[in-house]
């Protein structure tokens, strides 16, 4: 029972009250860069959910089964980024061969994920919070879902910005940042949801 409540706390935290983008600022580059259209934003979001889940699982195993026994904990950043980069490359090759429809849908977003700080961030946070394997995987997947939610919401706002009348200097990035700021304000309302803490 206690296990289950921990998992629910992690889920609610990662998606709403402690959202990766709006309260931890992880993954802002793709969040701002790929949120011009809802379609592409959704594609990117699903790719991130997928990679974050897998990356949490694999980096957890690498840390606990390889780095800890060999006393190589100080190499964790290097090890994790290499694991993530090769994982992304591997997923790309695998999808291209076996699920070409998904591969074309995700398109250029897959390789971009390597430098998404949310992926490396979730791997490091799993270790920092000393989660067990299941908690780490759940945190990875739900963190990705939080990213998906945020990027789809921002893309819908940005599509409507065409009709807005704002100063010309705010064109492009700045107005998107301000919109994201207002969304972060709205997400602050969820911060009371840390019920099990």
């Amino acid at each position: 029972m206690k296990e289950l409540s921990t998992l629910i706390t992690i889920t609610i935290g990662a998606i709403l009250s402690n959202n990766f983008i709006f309260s931890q600022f992880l993954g802002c580059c793709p969040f701002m860069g790929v949120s011009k259209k809802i379609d592409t934003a959704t594609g990117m979001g699903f790719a991130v959910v997928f990679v974050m889940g897998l990356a949490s699982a694999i980096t957890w195993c690498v840390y606990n089964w390889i780095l800890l026994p060999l006393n190589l904990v100080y190499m964790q950043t290097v090890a994790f980024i290499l694991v993530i980069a090769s994982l992304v490359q591997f997923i790309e090759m695998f999808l291209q061969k076996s699920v070409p429809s998904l591969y074309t849908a995700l398109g250029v977003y897959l390789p971009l994920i390597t430098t998404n700080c949310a992926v490396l961030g979730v791997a490091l946070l799993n270790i920092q919070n000393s989660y067990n394997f299941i908690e780490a995987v759940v945190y990875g997947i739900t963190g990705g879902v939080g990213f998906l939610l945020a990027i789809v919401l921002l893309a819908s706002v940005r599509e409507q910005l065409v009709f807005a009348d704002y100063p010309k200097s705010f064109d492009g990035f700045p107005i998107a940042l301000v919109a994201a700021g207002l969304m972060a304000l709205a997400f602050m309302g969820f911060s009371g949801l840390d019920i099990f803490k």
Partner: protein
Amino acid sequence: MDFKSQFKEGLITNNPVLVQLLGLCSVMAISTSFFNGIGMGIAVTIILTLSNIIISAIRNIVPNKIRIAMFIVVIAGFVTMVDLLLQAFVPALSESLGVFIPLIVVNCIILGRAESFSYKNGVLASAIDGICQGIGYTAVLLVMCIIREFLGAGTFGGGILGSGGIFDGGALGAGKGITILPEQYPMKLLTLPVGGFIVLGVLIAAMQWALNRSKQKAEEAAKIEKEAVQV
């Protein structure tokens, strides 16, 4: 390319944050106090300069296909070194920056400069580019910190100056900052994540406005000159 134009490019016309729009995560996340800003700025500048030097030194040996992987390994190595050094000698900074020190690995500025500059230029030019781009990043970070700290907490130089700071006999990172606004005025909102997004948005807008204006002025001047020549 001489040092002066590279410096101007890094600080203003091709500023990594305000013009190239790279490395936004860390700028928004840690610009809450002056101490964080200056620490992160120095860390990024050092890593950027060193990785630029190494990457431009090995650029002729590395095959084109695996260059990105090589860049990441070089950068991750330097980041690990800086991370461990900070943990050993400036634990207060390491604690307050937390996960954002190892995350410098995926900071787009460093990878971006590796790909677009140091992979194509010599060692000395790359070193200077690293320093200039690093200073540009640090400058934006400090401006963000000062604005957010002043409007959000009403203080200046948090973590370094003020009561309990290093000039008051305290430890590094413990200072409360010099209070400028009385307690009831500051908007606490700006020190929260919301402030990061909005202040950065306004700064980029101001930069776009300034760059557009100087461009228009130059165009007008050129036009007037042309007309004068025709007359």
